[in-house]
């Protein structure tokens, strides 16, 4: 199995290289992080439903739609990506694709545990530490391959994420920030020292080697780079980004596995906001309440 330990890459390359590997029918493991921030939509996300385009434009945050599943994510250089491309006929790939997460996420789980965090798999595809989401993951069939992609959150820009997502009103946005902050956890939250890229990648590589066998370090060759360039143009094109996608009734943001913030249509003076955890309404809030949170974006 080829290993591409790329370190810092351009924001488009941080997605396009694994797409290119898959389209070329080549298996490989990629480790990298983007040098600049961007917003990444899942294949079936609807841009206008999900994203405050004006905010992203004003802040110069570019957009990309990947061909794997899961929802909208804000990505930057404080997240380490691990991306595994396997041919669909690889015996490792189960008929029930989601079952592979159990295996795919073991290396990241080991990294967290080596750092002293009590991390565990929250099926199908989250890693949770201390009951809070610490890694986002998704997968998709691309060409004749399947790509599994995940990340380790060294830190997370909760403010920008909550601003970039479309919100029906500012109260929803405040709750979104608060709930994300309470239900996501990063290495910065847990460690007294900064986590080094090399320590994390060493742990990931060791973990993947246990599952995949020897990994051969490689640099992207000309064919891969050219394919990635073309794929990158497509993934960021206006036509591709504007493809229609799912638009649930009311506003619904998934925060972690089984955790959603819903906004129901206006009832009386304001909207009713509901935090749903594993199918149960955990918190119901008025959309126009006067709760003030000391958020930087309100300053």
């Amino acid at each position, binding site marked *: 199995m080829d290993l591409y330990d790329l370190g810092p890459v351009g924001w488009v390359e941080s997605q396009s290289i694994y797409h290119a590997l898959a389209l070329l029918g080549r298996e490989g493991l990629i480790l990298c992080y983007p040098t600049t921030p961007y917003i990444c939509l899942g294949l079936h996300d609807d841009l206008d439903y999900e994203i405050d385009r004006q905010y992203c434009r004003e802040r110069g945050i570019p957009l990309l739609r990947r061909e794997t599943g899961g929802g909208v994510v804000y990505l930057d250089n404080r997240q380490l990506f691990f991306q595994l491309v396997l041919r669909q006929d690889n015996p490792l790939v189960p*008929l029930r694709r989601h079952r592979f997460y159990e295996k795919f996420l073991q290396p990241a789980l080991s990294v967290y545990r080596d750092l002293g965090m009590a991390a565990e798999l929250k099926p199908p595809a989250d890693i949770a530490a201390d009951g809070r989401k610490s890694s986002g993951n998704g997968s*998709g069939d691309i060409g004749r391959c399947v790509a599994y992609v995940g990340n380790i959150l060294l830190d997370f820009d909760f403010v920008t994420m909550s601003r970039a997502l479309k919100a029906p009103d500012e109260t929803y946005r405040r709750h979104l920030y608060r709930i994300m902050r309470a239900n996501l956890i990063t290495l910065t939250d847990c460690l007294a020292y900064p986590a080094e890229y090399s320590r994390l990648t060493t742990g990931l590589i060791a973990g993947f080697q246990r599952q995949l066998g020897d990994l051969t370090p490689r640099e992207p060759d000309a064919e891969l780079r050219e394919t990635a360039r073309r794929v990158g143009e497509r993934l960021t094109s206006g036509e591709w980004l504007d493809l229609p996608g799912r638009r649930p009734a009311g506003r619904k943001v998934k925060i972690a596995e089984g955790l959603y913030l819903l906004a129901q249509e206006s009832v009386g003076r304001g909207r009713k906001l509901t935090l749903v955890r594993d199918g149960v309404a955990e918190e119901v809030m008025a959309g126009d309440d006067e709760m003030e949170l000391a958020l930087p974006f309100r300053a």
Partner: protein
Amino acid sequence: MQREKRAIPDDLFYDRNDFWIKVAEEAVIGLTDYGQGNIGDILYLELVPAGTVVRRGERCGSIESGKWVGSLLAPVSGMIVETNRDAEADPHMVNADPFGRGWLYRIEPADRNEIGLLMDSGAYQAWIEERICLEEKNSQGWID
């Protein structure tokens, strides 16, 4: 892997991407019970619009379940004459009733000879068994 009993009606044809095909003047196409079971809870379904001409094996839609997306590949060539808008609006219908209300689209086959490339129920059952056995052998216990 825990084996589950899956329906495989005798009056349908099947392909290796887990689609069923009911052949008459037109063909009705859907996902098999086994196929929907492997995909899991379907959260989103998108079909190419009626009027689209597709070739066998070409993408004719996409599907998303929890944390996975994949393409729907046409089992036969032809022009799609109708898509199941109800299933697009409520994809869980495909899980709940894959051979009935969860059908995906109707297609006017372009080449009747392609029907001969499909499997009957017995061959499809045997092919499923073969895949399950292969996966059990390869997974070596890491999958429940």
